[in-house]
């Protein structure tokens, strides 16, 4: 008997379970199989800061949401169409975000009295009618997995661990995903542990067969390929794209890549990724602390390398003084801040955009730096190249403001040809008479990059104020005034592309202006608003210091400018300060990206105020 196949244009699935249930891996695999099928997609991993929070509790729930479609996808989806809940905690933690009529697949074996009471269910939601408005599939994921693996010499506990693969197999069948890539992945991952490999493959296959054969699942679904520009694609997360962008910058500049880093969530994956690629001449140095991490990067820059440090908000706070030294020494330095919820330790695994003012102003003295922000996961690749261009051309620290959402989220990426990447070649100062380390280039206002090993230009630099041109220590009042203004003028004069406004009719009633990772949610809201007949424009800032030169004119043109940010109005503050424009802030700090719906609601409120 063949089961009917229903065509859908898009689906949002959320995998949720205990933090030890392997939900991130399950989500990752489903994502890879979906990407290679040609759907467009966007993902949102969401997990607790604890490695293993108490089992079966709400704080221990880890989830992975994936939105895929036959058309361009901007966000990981507001509400899941399908929730896979591996235990009562996962159900309880996620059910309020699941729309009525959605499909819920639960592991009924986990719905024991004990597990239910652990999360405060007085009655079993699978039996008390509370889920009547959903399509519930109560599947014995654990018992079916254990039964399927009974032939293998595994303990029950070991066998149970493969239940995520059973769930993945089932979903793979439901949505007609190919199985080869996950099978190959498992073979590579568990190649040295044949029993574990066999268990995972068998559970995966059994889950797939379960969908195919049982009456519980009457239909399966197809989502056609999305129309995308021709080319070679891969799926990529923001952190991986950032690491690749830095390697590309090193290759295109001919500069040795030196990463000084101290492990911190959610930035550590950039360190991990770069550490794999030493054959590109990459040096990764796991320092003793955040200060040593940026110090070593600055030391490497002084020696003529592309010095980079990666961190998150608390790490930036520790690095502030060294970044100030970078400003004073006028050396290239790239600081990547993968922002997370703050203040203090805050929400280590949740996203936020609340370090913008820290990046702009978090140093003593007048200490301008360049500030860039990638708009989506694969944009991290391009922004890394841009940061390298600006840092090496203008000899200045450059912040890249990524965040947990785009760092861990992933999307399909059209792989660029290496020849299309910018040429980042730089010139060091050459041997010369009467060398002046602070003689500025008239166009860029950059000082020479004068590296040790160059005969005849031996000189001393430091954190003390320097005399114009000669770089000798100077406490002269007029000289300090001149140098402070010169450093500011240099950063203000950094060439950045004009801001592009997406305004099809040219007379939109409101401009939504965002920065960083809010790009997708805003674009998604704009799409929906236009479908309902609203005239709305979108512009998105990748360059925050300096702002694009045409930003002032754009702000002037639109009577209403809505500025959504995952903070309490930091970009809004900068815009008001620089342009005296009373922009309308739109803020949330829940540790999650904006939903499309809340941006639609906020915009409608502004439009119809």
């Amino acid at each position: 008997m063949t089961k009917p196949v229903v065509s859908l244009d898009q689906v949002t699935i959320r995998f949720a379970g205990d933090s030890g249930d392997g939900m991130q891996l399950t989500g990752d695999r489903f994502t890879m199989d979906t990407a290679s099928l040609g759907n467009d997609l966007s993902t949102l991993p969401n997990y607790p800061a604890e490695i293993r929070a108490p089992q079966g509790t709400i704080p221990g729930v880890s989830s992975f949401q994936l939105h895929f479609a036959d058309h361009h996808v901007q966000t990981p989806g507001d509400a899941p169409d399908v929730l896979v809940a591996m235990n009562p905690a996962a159900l309880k933690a996620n059910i309020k975000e699941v729309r009525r009529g959605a499909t819920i697949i639960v592991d009924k074996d986990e719905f024991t009295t004990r597990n239910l009471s652990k999360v405060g269910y007085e009655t079993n939601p699978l039996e008390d009618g509370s889920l009547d408005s959903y399509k519930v599939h109560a599947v014995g994921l654990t018992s079916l997995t254990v039964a399927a693996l009974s032939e293998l010499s595994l303990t029950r506990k070991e066998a149970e661990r493969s239940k995520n693969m059973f769930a993945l197999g089932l979903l793979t069948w439901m949505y007609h995903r190919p199985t080869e890539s996950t099978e190959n992945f498992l073979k590579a991952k568990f190649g040295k542990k044949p029993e574990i490999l066999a268990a995972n493959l068998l559970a995966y296959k059994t889950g797939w067969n379960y969908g195919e054969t049982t009456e519980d699942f009457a239909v399966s679904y197809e989502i056609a390929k999305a129309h995308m520009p021709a080319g070679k694609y891969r799926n990529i997360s923001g952190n991986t794209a950032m690491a690749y962008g830095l390697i590309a910058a090193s290759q295109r500049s001919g500069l040795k890549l030196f990463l000084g880093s101290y492990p911190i969530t959610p930035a550590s994956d950039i360190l991990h990724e770069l550490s794999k690629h030493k054959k590109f001449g990459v040096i990764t140095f796991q320092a003793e602390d955040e200060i040593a991490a940026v110090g070593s990067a600055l030391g490497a820059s002084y020696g003529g390398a592309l010095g980079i440090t990666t961190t998150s908000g608390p790490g930036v706070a520790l690095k502030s003084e060294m970044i100030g030294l970078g400003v004073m020494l006028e050396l290239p330095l790239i600081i990547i801040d993968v922002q997370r919820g703050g203040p203090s330790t805050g929400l280590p695994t949740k996203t936020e955009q609340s370090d913008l003012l820290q990046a702009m102003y978090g140093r003593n003295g007048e200490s301008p730096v360049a500030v860039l922000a990638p708009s989506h996961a694969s944009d991290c690749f391009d922004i890394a190249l841009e940061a390298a261009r600006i840092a090496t051309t203008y000899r200045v620290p450059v912040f890249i403001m990524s965040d947990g959402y785009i760092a861990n989220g992933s999307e399909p990426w059209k792989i660029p040809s290496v020849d299309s990447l910018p040429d980042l070649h730089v010139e060091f100062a050459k041997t010369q008479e009467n060398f002046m380390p602070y003689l500025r280039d008239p166009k860029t206002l950059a000082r020479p990059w004068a590296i040790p090993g160059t005969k005849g230009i031996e000189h001393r630099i430091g954190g003390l104020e320097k005399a114009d041109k000669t770089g000798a220590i100077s406490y002269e009042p007029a000289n300090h005034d001149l140098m402070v203004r010169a450093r500011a003028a240099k950063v203000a004069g950094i060439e950045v592309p004009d801001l592009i406004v997406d305004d099809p009719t040219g007379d939109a009633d409101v401009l939504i202006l965002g920065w960083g990772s809010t790009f997708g949610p805003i674009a998604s809201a704009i799409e929906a608003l236009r479908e309902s007949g609203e005239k709305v424009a979108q512009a998105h800032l990748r360059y925050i210091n300096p702002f694009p030169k045409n930003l002032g004119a754009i702000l002037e043109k639109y009577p209403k400018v809505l500025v959504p940010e995952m903070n309490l109005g930091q970009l809004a503050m900068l815009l008001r300060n620089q342009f005296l424009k009373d922009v309308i802030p739109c803020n949330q700090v829940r540790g999650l990206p904006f939903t499309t719906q809340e941006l639609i609601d906020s915009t409608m409120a502004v439009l119809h105020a």
Partner: protein
Amino acid sequence: MPDLALTKKDFTSDQEVKWCPGCGDYSILSTMQSFLPELGVPRENIVFVSGIGCSSRFPYYLETFGMHSIHGRAPTIATGLAISRPDLTVFVITGDGDSLSIGGNHLIHSLRRNIELKILLFNNRIYGLTKGQYSPTSEQGKVTKSTPLGSLDTPFNPISLAIGAEATFVARTVDSDRKHFTEVLRAATAHKGSALIEIFQNCPIFNDGAFDIVKDGDTKGAALLQMVHGQAIKSETHGLVHDGASLKVVELGSVSESDLVIHDAHNADPSYAFALSRLSSSELSHVPVGIFRDVQRDGYGSMVNNQVADIIAAQGAGDLNSLLTSGDTWDVQ
């Protein structure tokens, strides 16, 4: 080494030296400027990196590359530089406040990693540039502006600290003894990994005479226990003997010459060098000077660069296009 025909003058910058008259830093600078020609390294390949404090002005006065950085962090900058530029000779200039207080973490980690840095720790047992507060090496009870009733802190012993941090080269010298300092510098620069040299340095303004006992002609002969590899450790009046697992200072003549400890700077067991380091008390009655420890361990920078070279030799240099197109990819027509 090639004779580059450089002289002390070639290593003297045009900057006016701005230490207080009588500061021990002058003789340290002068000894360094005299020593550098002998090192045989071109000026452009020498970098002095310093932190903050009186001693950290040192790089300005040398005609080499130099960086006067921020408080306590010189080892971090020097680490990035030394790892990424193994062709350079990198010195770190620091003081007791800079390296043992605000920068303590970086000092111990650069020593344990064995980064190719020559760290000169000017120990004057006081904060000079901030005008006279007690430092991590000040003796307990020290009366200063910030401790009018006497300091309560137990001081660090920099040599013990360095040995505890797995340092491979640890030495002590005295600012005014140019010959001894030069010998120590010679050994430190010949050493492959990190070298820490503690230099007793007099601050004539805020802690004058702190080291008189090891500098005055009348007393230094007795106080300074000379450590020379392969020779008995002794001062003019005292010698060292084994005392169980420890070492003990005895009057010469009270034991036979053959009972004196023969110095072994290359002893792999750090407890020997540690025991030597414990002989110096705050009162400086018996102070070992010379090289406590000089053992071979691969330098961190060379290991880092070998890892890169080895993987390139085994797999070839990375190809960017292959990297970008690695993993699961698909084609859209």
